[in-house]
């Protein structure tokens, strides 16, 4: 998607899974957001954004996640963000009070469950 971050999108159990690695800031947040949202068909239950591989995230990235959550909510689709406890990204999300706008999970599995439902 850009030289700063890589995006890989796949489908799993009716959800779209986007794995981002690299850095997310003002320069690429918009592009990433479009790239991710464009990959979500109407039939998908929702989206899992895996930020495990992200080394830098700032308020632009949090804005991006917030807007994605909002847009998916209009379409009654859910968004779960994977940001393991203790990671840099998790710290930033907490600092910025991002829990108000998006749900973040410790593991991919729990995030996927949060989107598609199930045990």
């Amino acid at each position, binding site marked *: 998607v850009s030289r700063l971050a890589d995006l890989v999108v796949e489908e799993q159990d009716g959800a779209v899974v986007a794995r981002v690695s690299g*850095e997310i*800031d*003002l*320069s690429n947040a918009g592009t990433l957001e479009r790239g991710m949202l464009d990959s979500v068909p109407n039939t998908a239950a929702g989206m899992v954004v895996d930020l495990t591989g992200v080394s830098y995230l*700032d308020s632009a990235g949090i804005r991006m996640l*917030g807007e994605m959550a909002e847009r998916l909510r209009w379409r009654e689709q859910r968004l779960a963000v994977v940001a393991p406890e203790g990671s840099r990204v998790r710290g930033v999300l907490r*600092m910025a*009070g991002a829990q108000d706008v998006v749900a973040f999970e410790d593991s991919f599995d729990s995030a996927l469950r949060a989107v598609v439902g199930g045990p």
Partner: protein
Amino acid sequence: VDANRGSEAAADVRTADDERPDAVRRLRIVAGYVLLAAVYGLTAFLSLRLALVEDNITPLWPPTGIAVAALLLFGTRWWPGIALGALAVNLPITASPFAAALTAIGNTLAPLLAVWILRRARFRTELDRPRDVVVLLFAALSSMVVSATIGAGTLVLSDEVGADAFWTSWSVWWAGDSMGVLVVAPFLLVVWNRAHHRYPPPRRLEWLELFVVLALLAAVSVFAVTSDASMLFVALPFVGWAAWRFEQSGAAPAALLVSSAATWAAVGHRGPFQGGDLVDRMITLQGFNATVAFTAFFLAALVSERARSREALERGAADLEARVQRRTTELSDANQRLASQIAERRDAESRLRRSERQLAEAHEIARIGAWEWDLATGEVMWSEEMFRIHGVEPGAFEVTFDKAVEFVAEADRPRIRRNTEVALEQRRADVPDIEYRIELPDGGTKHLHARSRFSLTDDGTPVRMFGIVQDVTERHEFEREHRIADTLQRSLLPSSFPEMDGVQVAARYLPAELGVAAGGDWYDVIALGGGRLVLVIGDVAGHGLEAASLMGQLRTAVRAYALEGHAPGAVAARTDALMHEVAEEEMATLLLVALDVEAHAATIVSAGHPPPIALGPGGARLLEAELAPPLGFGQRARFGASSATLETGDMVLLYTDGLIDRHDLAIDEGLGRLLAAADANRDVDPEVLCDRILAAMVSGDVSDDIALLAVCLTPTAPGDLRMRIPAEPDALSQMRRGLARWLDAAGVPADVQGDVVLASSEAAANSIRHAYGPSRAWVEVEATLSSDEVRVVVRDRGRWRAPRGRGGRGLAVIEACMGSVEIERGGSGTEVRMRRPVGTKVAP
């Protein structure tokens, strides 16, 4: 047929013979004589076989016809040939040579006379006019009296005939010669002219038809002259036919044929000529032949003439048609031109409409109002823009001259009236341009520039006044600002400061708002190298261009002396001396602060100037200098230097008295307020300090120029980080990497690094997002490290703008990451100062 083509009785044509050698010419002439004589003689010999009287008179004498034709065609100078031929003919048949000679003279004289008559009558050998035929008839009948009389007389005198036979002889002789002229000569002339193409070209099969007609005529003639009845008239229709169809070409042979036949009959007593005596027969024959010849040629000439006139008519008609054609073409051309002119005019009209619209638009853009005043009716017409300029709706009221003048500022009305009156009195079309103020209904004032003209009649009577006004209010204001700014910026104030490590410089200049002249305040920063710097501020007394120009000179002088290495006191002394030299009456204050940046030492020299302020952690204090008079004050003054020591981070503030010397404030009070304002801002950078001090000190109008120079001794410890990145999102990651490397090298713990980088990037992103328009700009990031904390300053020079969207989250992140955050938003930009204690994790 060309009507003039006929040759009128050929005049003696001087032939080419005249140019030939005499012998050859003479030979040719003699040959011509002999030839002519031979032809004459041979024809005569043949004709004599028809002799009626003795052996020498015949009723048809072709030689005379030949003679007339020859003399007509070749010229009368050929008469000797005729005379020779006649003599030769007469000698053997006449009693004596004398009689023969006499007869020959008659035979020669008669043709010459005939030719003379014909030429006098302007006879044309083509015989294509009726008058030619009449003339020929007359010439034949009259001139042959000569030959007949001489011939018959000679016969009687030489006793060849009896005297009683004189008239018989005479009549036969006369008839023969006349017939020769009337029948044979035309025949020869026609043949000759035909051969020389003097007639219209023959029609198709004309020769055949002619032959048929002549053959028929011959048959009829033979019948007529052999039948016992008098049937000669039967030949006439055929003669008429030949003449009518073939004109001269038909008439000549037909007449010859019929005449010959009749003559033959008369000679042989045949047909109609069986009875009667010789004279009767001669009269009948003569009458018949003359009638035939005359009728034939006359008819032919009539036909020719008619053909000519028909042709002329046809040519006229063709000519007329051609002219009509040409005229029609001209008319259609004219029509076309008219059509294209109409089209052009239509084009021009549409262009005119377009240009009128453009003019109105241009007026609106240029704020030009147009007006017109009809002097006779007193009617005044304003354009829409004119109304708008006067602050009223277009057409809001009926404009009159007086009404228009009411808008004009009281003070300017006399000028306007005078301007108009002078032009009216002098009957001049030109009215001088004038600038005046108008007062608007809403109480505002505008400056208008007016140009107008009178429209005069031929005798110089003004009938109309018209003109434009331009709203130059903005220009007035702009020009004033522009003049000041331009003069000061370009020639007097430094546009940039020398870059020097460890020093940060900021300056401000505020022009006085009253008056239009530039002031005399100036400042300067001179880098001397080796970490030495001279700060200069000065104030030339007075305003205006003179003060400004002196200021420029002083600035240059100070700079030059300083750069030459003089100590501040000497610089001041030399500048003072120079001022006595160049501007005796003027005075100026001057403050010099020489800074040794590394030694943190300042040397201060003041020439009547307010003292500088030092601003450090301990507060603001005045740096007292030795008292010295202003430059140009009097006798060569001494300018003593005083010293001061400064600390890193200390700021030195130089200013002119406009800042503290205000009409509403005592000078001590002003200085006190300045010290307080500086004291309150000891931790800001020079730019911010300048802004704050101006904000604190200046309210409302600036009555005197204010110059302000702030210099900060910044830390120069190695390891400080300064970065300047383009204000673009793409530059953020580069900045983060640079900052992270610096933090890493400084031994800052990884978790603190992450927080500092995050906060700095957020701050820079904020600058990028909020501070600038889309044009190119920069964001500065500075990081310093002390023993226990990291300080980062992120600075932009843009105008701060309220954050759009969710801007608060970034700030939350910054605050969460750093121990202390200050955000400074000023007119010159925004500065975010962040501190983060090392070793203490601040974020929750």
